[in-house]
């Protein structure tokens, strides 16, 4: 993007207590106008609470929530420029599809016919053209979700809040809706804020992601940074799979950090690969499974090479997962290989040469 985006949501040191329970512990973050933003974390991390503070369903104990530059303190939910797609969809069962979609238009000054047009357009946008007269209870899960989307988007909110909207759908439907949501967001250009516990969903859909643990934001970054340069072991563990190995820091010049790990030997890392500040606790290096490759006969390593023994083989069809114990290391490394025609699947106990690159390593200290 070339245009500078303004801030749509701003959290300023937001705290939330439920009695003694500290649910949000000093949230500071900004969400830009027009971006697809995700709040990602395990259940109980406060991501839904944070979303609900934007909608106005939760009061905050201290701090401020700003929407489009306005402080939302004492602004009730019904006048905030946000709309929400609820986890349960909350489609009113006593109304038809079009009554549901038009629910928020009561005080809209437009004529009845114009409102009916708007409802029809909104239904068409979510792919439910002609469903208007149906009873809400006769819809499938995916259709309910579309109604919930249409009902929220018809009001042209500044921010659309999505509370785990895909968790009730089956895998196929979920993947289809992910793509549709991305397209829809590009089409309407509204800021979308998605709450999810599914890291894959967050990576696929978001421009930026805030990873939350225990009421705090552990890392806020774009999906690639989050995946390649996780800020902590916890984030790395939550997003995808990562191999961890104890390592020793030999020297730290500021420009490069010399590290030694059993099995891999010495390597020098640049500062952007080093996470956290120096601590007395031992350092750990992390490697994603796909950054390790098995070198088959005749293949040469592009960077560095180590030897190991295959301990476990898990065949997934398109992929094979191996656990390989490096010579000199104590625990096996998980690595994944794409199954391409002509490439054999190794057996347990086989010796393997592994190619790797220090550039793919992350150091947590």
């Amino acid at each position, binding site marked *: 993007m070339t245009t500078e985006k303004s801030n749509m949501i701003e959290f300023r040191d937001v705290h939330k207590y439920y009695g003694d329970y500290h649910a949000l512990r000093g949230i500071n973050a900004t969400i830009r106008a027009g971006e697809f933003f995700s709040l990602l974390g395990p259940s109980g991390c406060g991501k839904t609470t944070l979303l609900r503070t934007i909608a106005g369903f939760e009061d905050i104990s201290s701090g401020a929530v700003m929407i489009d530059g306005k402080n939302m303190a004492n602004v009730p939910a019904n006048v905030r420029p946000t709309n*929400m797609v609820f986890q349960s969809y909350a489609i009113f*069962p006593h109304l038809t599809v079009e009554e549901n979609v038009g629910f928020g238009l009561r005080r809209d000054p437009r004529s009845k016919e114009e409102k009916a047009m708007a409802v029809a357009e909104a239904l068409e946008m979510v792919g439910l053209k002609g469903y208007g007269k149906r009873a809400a*209870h006769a819809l499938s899960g995916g259709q309910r979700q579309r109604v919930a989307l249409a009902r929220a988007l018809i009001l042209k909110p500044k921010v659309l809040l999505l509370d785990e909207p895909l968790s009730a759908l089956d895998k196929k439907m979920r993947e289809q809706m992910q793509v549709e949501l991305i397209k829809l967001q590009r089409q309407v250009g509204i800021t979308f804020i998605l709450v999810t516990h599914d890291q894959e969903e967050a990576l696929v859909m978001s421009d930026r992601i805030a990873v939350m643990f225990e009421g705090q934001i552990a890392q806020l970054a774009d999906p690639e940074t989050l995946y390649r340069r996780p800020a902590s072991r916890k984030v790395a563990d939550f997003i995808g799979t990562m191999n961890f190995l104890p390592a020793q820091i030999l020297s730290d010049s500021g420009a490069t950090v010399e590290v030694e790990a059993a099995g891999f030997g010495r390597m020098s890392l640049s500062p952007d690969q080093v996470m956290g500040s120096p601590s007395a606790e031992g350092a750990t290096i992390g490697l994603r499974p796909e950054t390790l490759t098995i070198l088959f006969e005749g293949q040469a390593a592009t960077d560095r090479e180590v030897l190991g023994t295959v301990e476990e083989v898990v065949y997934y069809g398109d992929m094979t997962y191996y656990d390989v114990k490096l010579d000199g290391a104590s625990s096996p490394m998980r690595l994944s290989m794409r199954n391409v025609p002509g490439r054999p699947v190794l057996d347990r106990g086989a010796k393997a040469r592994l190619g790797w690159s220090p550039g793919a390593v992350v150091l947590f200290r």
Partner: protein
Amino acid sequence: MEPGSTPGRFRNSEAANGLFMVSPPAIYAVLLLAAPLIAMVLYSLMVDSKVGLSSGLTFDNYLKVWTGRIDQALMIRSLTVSAMVTLVTVLLAYPVAYFVSFHVKPEKKSMWLFLITIPFWTSYLIRVFLWKVILGYNGVINSGLMSIGIIDEPLTIINYSLGSMIMTLAHAYAAFAILPIFVSLEKIDRSFLEAGQDLGESKFRTFIRVTLPLSMPGVIAAVLIVFIPTIGDYVTPELIGGGKLPMIANRIEAIMLKQNDKALGSAIAMTAMLIVALVSIVFILLNRRFLRGQSK
């Protein structure tokens, strides 16, 4: 008998099992409900004279009831009283049910329901008597007001009046109205209320557009539960109304027992039942309309 043969299969089937299980209450219901009802229908088509019931069937009794001034007036009074009682009861019960459902902590709800039902541990007759003690000519209210000098002689408006009858009956049926409304409010997914506000409606407007329509099945159930028994109430008009404001049940009692005219009494009873049935059907149809939209 061979296991494959039809009677053997029937004996072991689920249907046979079900019939067996349901037969004691079914026999009980037939003997004690259906049989007397059929007897009443037959009575109402006969003529009762000093000699005994006639054997020929006739609609004379019904004609007498439907054109009789007294019967018409009493039927209308019964309908009015029970309609008023129903209205008062449901209007008062709804806020109570709403409060318990929405503002009482979940762990305290069962205690609240328990407290609400406590008055119903006392017999209906005794509760009506107590209202007589409170509202009567020399009752608590009148003597209290007289002793502090607000009034000089007992108020007659609070005793032997339709108002006091309605008050007594509304109190008697309060719990029966609170419980079904409470249940229907409990069933409402709270995210509907948030959705209503999220879509720009105030809390009050959300109540009107979401909560109230979704709780209608409970309201209609409450209406039926209160309306059906109050229309045939006998005790309250006798004790609170002082016998001066009889309802249809008192009329039936008078004809059946005092005048010993079983045929005419049965015809009045059947007529009353028919009217109650018609009103109930209207409400059941209404209920179905509300329920249709809500089954998942």
